[in-house]
């Protein structure tokens, strides 16, 4: 079938863009940047461009991708110094004829744009992550026969953009970080199988919610409406209230 108007085309559109792509292979002394020029269409995303570079220009370029619609969280990158999901970032929207692409920061680097998410998940698993929550949309809808309540996946897509943007994660490997803390607040808000008191004990720690310095870069970077910063503040409010209660409540106990 002949297709006119491929909205994500990477050739023949007359809009050349220069891509500066971070390169590193195991064993290299230092990373460097490779330059590729591609043409882009209205809807061409950074991921489309990188995939095209990989397919047509350099098959040794590696990157993480899977779902193409910011649900899997694998294609997080720093593009022109901002944390984004490459699959939903249109090249045209960057408003620049030069596009710099780097891996997300503050994670172990495997090669090129691929990071190893081991540290990310270690922090997550320290808290415990519930994947499914009550669906908070369409609250007036009735449930069908056989379904007690509608559920849905948690917002967090485990992309690591929040950790890349956080200035504290940048300098302190012990900080639990926005992703795990946001998951912790969700466990307090909607416990499911997790024990909210146990979770609060983990987060009420100098390296837990108190390590945050209120930069809010995590919430700005989050592509999935998690608002980690807001959740960290809610944790802190809850923790502070419990401290006060135990100090003053104890007297009247």
């Amino acid at each position: 079938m002949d297709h006119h108007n491929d909205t994500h085309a990477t050739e023949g559109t007359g809009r050349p863009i220069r891509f500066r792509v971070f390169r590193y292979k195991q064993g290299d002394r230092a990373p460097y940047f490779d330059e590729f020029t591609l043409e882009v269409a209205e809807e061409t995303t950074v991921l489309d461009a990188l995939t095209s570079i990989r397919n047509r220009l350099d098959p040794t370029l590696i990157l993480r991708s899977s779902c193409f619609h910011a649900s899997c969280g694998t294609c997080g990158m720093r593009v022109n110094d901002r944390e984004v999901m490459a699959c939903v970032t249109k090249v045209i929207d960057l408003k620049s004829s030069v596009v710099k692409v780097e891996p997300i920061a503050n994670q172990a680097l495997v090669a090129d744009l691929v990071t190893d998410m081991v540290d990310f998940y270690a922090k997550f698993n320290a808290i415990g992550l519930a994947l499914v929550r009550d669906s908070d949309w369409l609250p007036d809808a009735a449930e069908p026969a056989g379904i007690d309540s509608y559920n849905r996946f948690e917002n967090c897509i485990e992309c690591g953009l929040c950790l890349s943007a956080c200035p504290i994660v940048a300098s302190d490997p012990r900080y639990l970080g926005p992703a795990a803390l946001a998951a912790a607040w969700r466990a307090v808000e909607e416990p499911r199988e997790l024990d909210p008191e146990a979770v609060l004990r983990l987060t009420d720690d100098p390296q837990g919610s108190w390590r945050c310095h209120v930069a809010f870069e995590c919430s700005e970077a989050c592509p999935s409406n998690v608002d980690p910063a807001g959740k960290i503040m809610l944790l802190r409010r809850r923790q502070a209230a419990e401290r006060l209660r135990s100090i003053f409540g104890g007297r009247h106990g």
Partner: protein
Amino acid sequence: MTREMSHAGSAPHVVIVGGGGTGGAVAHDLVLRGLRVTLVERGELTSGTTGRHHGLLHSGARYAVKDRESAVECIEENRILRRIAPDSFELNDGLFVAITAEDEAYEPLFFESCLASDIPARRVTREEALRLEPNLNPELRCAVQVPDGTMDAMRLPLRFFATAKRNGATIRPFTEAVAMTIVQGPSGRCVTGVSVQDHTSGRRYDIGADLVVNAAGPWGEKIARMADVDVPIQPSPGILVAVRGRFCNMVVNRLHDSGDGDIVLPQRELSVIGTSSWVTDDPDHLAVPADHVEMMFREGSAMIPAIRSAQTRATWSAARPLIGERGASSGRELSRTFKCFDHAAEEGVEGFVTISGGKATTLRAMAEATADVVCKKLGIESPCRTREYPLLPHTAYYA
């Protein structure tokens, strides 16, 4: 050179080429049967077709009328997946919604076919449908409720990889198969290994194998050619559109003969409309045609009018690896069930099998069929355990 036992009693080593859902499930199955497994994938796991699919945990109702075999496969696997991978699905059931008189006329046949395929179906009146899903087109006539669900397209298969890895499989993403090692012996040709390029370091090395499983999806033909065999895989792309806003909790299907854009399902805070179908020879270059995008909005908003004015989050294409001959015109006429090809039987090349076809919901069944073939060829008697074996959470992959 014949295949000799170098380590007496050592389990056979199977190399799987392709890190999609099928490859992961095959690795999981074979490891449980006691084989040694190495899986190579040129990109990130599920970065081919698997990660991009709609995300539907099929009840099979869609195939009940025209493709009974697929329908029965689907509902069986639907039940198994709910059992072995809890918490990987949004389990809100689905509705097949009749909008036109034609749809309504189709309903009795559809309903009976569901029951005949062992798919639990329940008739829903127009009023009840609107109570369940307030955003539905108020002109709908009736609906049928079925046990559809939504899966996370990447995270569900990742559970198979996590479990296989924990049980001893070697999983190597960013490792591209570039050639097969083929040996000419007195009894014919035999594949004895895979030559790979490790893209994390640039190094090329060989992996010896007692058998190679080609699970490369739409790239299956490319891999098969490395082994000097041919396999009739027709890459058949379709488009998907994600819009912002969760317009339904249930999966919403159009109650008619399978067509384009007739499924809308929720994923977190998005609604995803799909899909369409065309054929291509090159799975690496999938267009995202403007007319197909428009078709998704048109068909999707026929069921849920709010979609028309929703903000687009993403548009993309994914290629189904359908089995069939070249020359099909749209891909929809090819069967959606799967097949495992033993290339020794058909082309005299030993040590190489290809699994293709199928859909995301049936990944475990595809793996079982493939593992049965593999074990038979290697003389291993070991039953499949994947129907009951609970999968580790996807986060365990990174541990």
